[in-house]
Every structure is written in structure tokens, then in C-alpha cells.
């Protein structure tokens, strides 16, 4: 049941595992940009930038729209995080972490390994 979850997760993960692609997401957070201007900004060929944008698009992190001869990129819905959601995501993450930390601390206490 769980294995099919691997696919969207893998896509996002693969998309964000590259430092240039993370830079593109940051850049689009400041405003929409054409593929040409992104290529200039990151000093890459147009082809190289198109490939990066395709990876981000497949992961749902970026949306592109072609008007005339210019393809404009903007953050996808998943790239636009409302602050409240972001805070909530952090809360859940830390809550899960700290519950696991609790378990380890309890183990350590039971081992009587405290100073």
C-alpha cells in the first residue's frame, strides 16, 4: 500500500536534490521569470535550464506558460507556502522528532547511564 507513495516523493526529492534547482525555486519566490532570464542568471545554456525547469515542473514545484516565443516560469501551488502552513509543517516535523528523542532519552535513563 505504501510503495506507490514513493513516486511523488521521489520526484520532489530528486527535483530538490540539485543546488541549481533549489536556487531556481528561491529565484521564482521573488517573482516570475522567463527561461532565458533564468539561464542568464544561473549562467547556463538555454537547453540546460530547460531540463532543470522540466524536472521542477514534473514535481509540481514550478508551472510554465508559453506566451508567443517566451516561456515564463512561476512557482507551482506547492512552491507557494503560506506561512501558517510552513509553521505547521515545522511543528509536525519537530513534534515527530522530539517524540523519537523522548524514546531515546527514556532508554538512556533506563540504562542508568546518567551522570
Amino acid at each position, binding site marked *: 500500500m*505504501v510503495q506507490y507513495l514513493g513516486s511523488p516523493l521521489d520526484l520532489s526529492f530528486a527535483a530538490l536534490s540539485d543546488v541549481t534547482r533549489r536556487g531556481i525555486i528561491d529565484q521564482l519566490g521573488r517573482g516570475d521569470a522567463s527561461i532565458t532570464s533564468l539561464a542568464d542568471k544561473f549562467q547556463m545554456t538555454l537547453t540546460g535550464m530547460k531540463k532543470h525547469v522540466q524536472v521542477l515542473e514534473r514535481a509540481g514545484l514550478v508551472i510554465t506558460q508559453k506566451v508567443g516565443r517566451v516561456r515564463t516560469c512561476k512557482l507551482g501551488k506547492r512552491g507557494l507556502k503560506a506561512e501558517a502552513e510552513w509553521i505547521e509543517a515545522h511543528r509536525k516535523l519537530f513534534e515527530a522528532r522530539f517524540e523519537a528523542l523522548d*524514546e531515546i532519552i527514556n532508554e538512556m535513563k533506563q540504562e542508568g547511564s546518567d551522570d
Partner: protein
Amino acid sequence: MTEQVNSAGGARNRTSVERRGDRELLVTRTFDAPPSTVYRAWSQPELFQRWWVPKSASGILLVSCEMDVCTGGKYRLEFGAGGSDTMAFYGKYLEVVPNERIVWTNDEGEEGAITTVTFEDQGGSTLLIFHEVYPSKEALEEALQGSAAALPEQLVQLDELLSSIGE
């Protein structure tokens, strides 16, 4: 919400997360153990890697975890999701005071935050304060919208999917 009870028998300690001012994030929680114990679970890599990636994020693995927790030391964490892609988080420890405080940089991005974790003794228990300061309001805003938000989001999404599937 049902109140859960931890194995120490007390009510579950709350995790609080808040944004402070323009460029700070603050996470606090109490642990039922002295600072020396909590500090050890944070500073020894073999213990740290057992809790930093929650079990609920079963799709994400900590591939490697190198931590030299001393002032001037370095750390590097590499995450993977099963494929050949990994994501690395790395930086150096600016200040380490055993059982009290660890301060480190986050160097994987251009405008990384400085993170301070403090262990406050509260008569046998520990108040843990995790405090991130970004270099600018813009850097925090970018983190809100950009890649820094993506990983927790993934974990939460996975968490929600797993919990909606149930047993």
C-alpha cells in the same frame, strides 16, 4: 485530541513553534531528563541519527551522518529517498558548551540561518530551545517559500498519507 501519556507517566510535553520578528524561528519543548542526557542524545551521531528523521517519514533515509560536535567542528547530513539522489545539509559548529548550548551554521544555501539549541536545566527536566536566525527578512521569506520548506512539507505530506491509510 486525546491526551497521550508518555512512558515516564507524565502528560505529553508540547512542542511549540513560532515565528519571532522578521527573521527568527523558535521551537521549544520540555524533556523529562537532565540537560546532560538530552545533550548527549543531540551530540552523539549514533543517537542523533535515530531521532532526527522521524519514523513517519519512512520514504526518507539519513544516508550518512557526520558530526564533530566541538567549537570549530563540522557536520554533514545526507538524506536520500531510495534513489541515487541525495540532499546534503552541512555547516560548522560556531560554539559548543557541553550540556548547555550548541550553535551551528547552515551552509548549503546562500543565506543560511544560524541555529542555536539551548538546554536549560529546570530542576531535573530540560527546556530545549531551538532558535534559528536568518541573515535577513528576505532570507526567511525565501525559506518560507523555497527549498527549506520543501523537506518538512514532504515529511508532513507523507505523514498525512500514512495516517490516512491507517494500519
